[in-house]
């Protein structure tokens, strides 16, 4: 029996330049999903300050919002959430077997729409931050 050669991780993520639309959609969907789960915990942590006193909550929110980095992260959060929603709808259609021939186009469309929404939201999020 001949032994064989293991080509290792180069077979997968080392080839990222050669990934196609469906693969990128999958990676972005996983990534945005994990980011949203991470946000969920910080969100609960911030909300739970309200159990101590209303003032405490207000103060926490105010001090957080006064930080420029938080404003920037909020834009990032919106980007991730919008993409996850749009791609989620795309995956719903894929599961229903609708428009599978256009799956790459719908991925690019969801990217474009999320980008547009994020750019439009920048003035709102960053107003007075800098």
């Amino acid at each position, binding site marked *: 029996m*001949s*032994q*064989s*050669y293991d*080509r290792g991780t180069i*077979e*997968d993520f080392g*080839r990222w*330049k*050669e990934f*196609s*639309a*469906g*693969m990128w*959609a*999958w990676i972005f969907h996983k990534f945005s999903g994990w980011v949203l789960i991470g946000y969920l915990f910080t969100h609960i942590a911030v909300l739970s300050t309200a159990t101590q006193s209303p003032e405490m909550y207000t103060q926490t929110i105010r001090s957080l919002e006064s930080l420029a980095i938080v404003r920037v992260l909020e834009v990032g959060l919106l980007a991730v959430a919008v993409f996850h929603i749009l791609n989620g709808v795309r*995956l719903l259609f*894929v*599961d229903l*077997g609708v428009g*599978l*021939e256009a*799956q*790459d186009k719908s991925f690019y469309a969801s990217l474009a729409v999320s980008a547009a929404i994020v750019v439009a939201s920048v003035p709102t999020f960053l107003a007075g931050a800098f």
Partner: protein
Amino acid sequence: MSTELKEKETEAETETESASSRQSRRMEQKRQRASRRDLKEEAREEIDDADDTIEIKVFRFDPEVAGKEEPRFDTFHVPFFKGMTVLDALIYARDHYDTSLTFRHSCRQAICGSDALFVNGTQRLGCKTQIADLEDHLGSTIRIEPLPHQEVVKDLVVDMEHFYDQMEAVEPFFDADELPEGELEEQRQDRENREKIKMSTRCIWCGACMSSCNIAAGDNEYLGPAAINKAYRFAMDEREGEDRKQQRLNIIEQEHGVWRCQTQFSCTEVCPKDIPLTEHIQELKREAVKNNLKFW
């Protein structure tokens, strides 16, 4: 005892072998060597004559030969002609430069499924891939590797055993409930049903889809796109028997069956026969749900 016999035979051979026959064998070898030299010469001339030449970079590995145990890439210059495929270039390189260059091929017309290769980072059939269709084929080197996620046996040859096991796991055969009465009577299928399964019958077992699948790479038990497509081909055929259909659905709806598919569309994109694999997997997912949902 057997060794004794063999010894006697070889002795007898050397005795009967006359000096002249030995010489003629040596002459034959010499002639072969000369013809090989001519091939290289010929290649040089052809490259000089050709309008365009291409450069292919081929993965080389052979655990049984000293000096080839470490995988490496060999570069070959091949004269380009109109209509040349990747397989043609490989055959040219093997015939003119290195007879030990190993790859599977048979029909050269995309129906035997032997020569699925990893060409410029995509799973393709060597015989179906026109070199002219590759991006910048004259300016850049064409990289030819064995299929990823399968064990390399030698050079471009990979071990297909696991793929064949998965294909057989879905019980790819007909088991009709009732057969026609007459001996020569046909088992008819209506046209609509034929259209439905048409694409799925085109599978040539090349293994390109399985190799491209990220999930199959990480989960060895996953049936893989080709096997699920095979299951689709029989499950959707109206002539298939109820019991066998149920049994097949039970196989594909297990943990490592259809539900592993994450719709990355890699398989659909590389399939040389253009089978809509993801669509078929999704349809079987719905079939599996319908099979288990009861509203009464």
